[in-house]
């Protein structure tokens, strides 16, 4: 066993000893991965993880480094980027990824990617044309 493997074994014991909790949170994260376009509020997600809302948010953040809401938004934006790259309109991309309104979609897209959906889409079309 080399040094790196021994460190992994150590971390498994010290940081990730609560197997059941990790599994519950992981399954909820995977639920977000496939159901991101649905109306997923905190009540739904916490119930899915069999945890109280407070405990769920704290555990999710400890395991993934971001809150469940931040994660959900990042999954939606990732999918929106894929749709926009395929020349789908902003309104359609917004609707297909579960955002409540175009305004909040544009705002969050800009905040996360640093560019607007429109600019992103045009840039992708341009690079495709070349």
């Amino acid at each position, binding site marked *: 066993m*080399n*040094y*790196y*493997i021994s460190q*992994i074994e150590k*971390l*498994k014991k010290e*940081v*990730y000893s609560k197997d059941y909790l*990790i599994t519950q*949170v*992981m399954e909820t*994260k*995977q639920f977000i991965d496939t159901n991101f376009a649905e109306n997923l509020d905190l009540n739904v997600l916490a119930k899915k993880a069999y945890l109280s809302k407070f405990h769920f948010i704290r555990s999710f953040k400890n*395991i*993934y480094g971001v809150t469940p809401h931040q994660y959900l938004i990042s999954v939606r934006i990732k999918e929106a980027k894929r749709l926009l790259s395929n020349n789908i309109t902003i309104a359609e991309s917004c609707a297909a990824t579960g955002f409540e309104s175009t305004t909040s979609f544009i705002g969050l897209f800009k905040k996360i990617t640093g560019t607007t959906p429109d600019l992103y889409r045009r840039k992708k079309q341009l*690079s495709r044309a070349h």
Partner: protein
Amino acid sequence: MQAFYFFAQINLVMRIKLASLLVQDQDKALKFYTEILGFIKKTEIPMGEHKWLTIVSKEEQDGVELVLEPLGFAPAKVYTEALFKAGIPQTAFNVDDVDKEYERLKSLGVEFSLQPTQMGPTKLAVFNDTCGNNIQIFQLL
């Protein structure tokens, strides 16, 4: 107002465009990273004894470029060898499915020092890039 306009035009931001990896042999590394791992060569510029050599992911060809840098500086060689011996990865690549990638690479003769292992919400595996480095692949579960 004019000054503001000027700064807005030249866009004062720093971008992360490159990451680098020291390799013992650039030609051998290019072959391994493109033919075995599946990356794409982005630039190759001759520079005397060595060259400026970068690769990108097939999926993000306008994304961060990985520079395959020659291991010319002696102390870097000592450092790289120590990391290799300890099994520590020089860098890590994200994949969709560690198990499938492990099987694919193994069938191509790639040697793994760590088989697919779950650590919390992450699955990882470590292989030898044949150019002096351990490389990790990981997947968020």
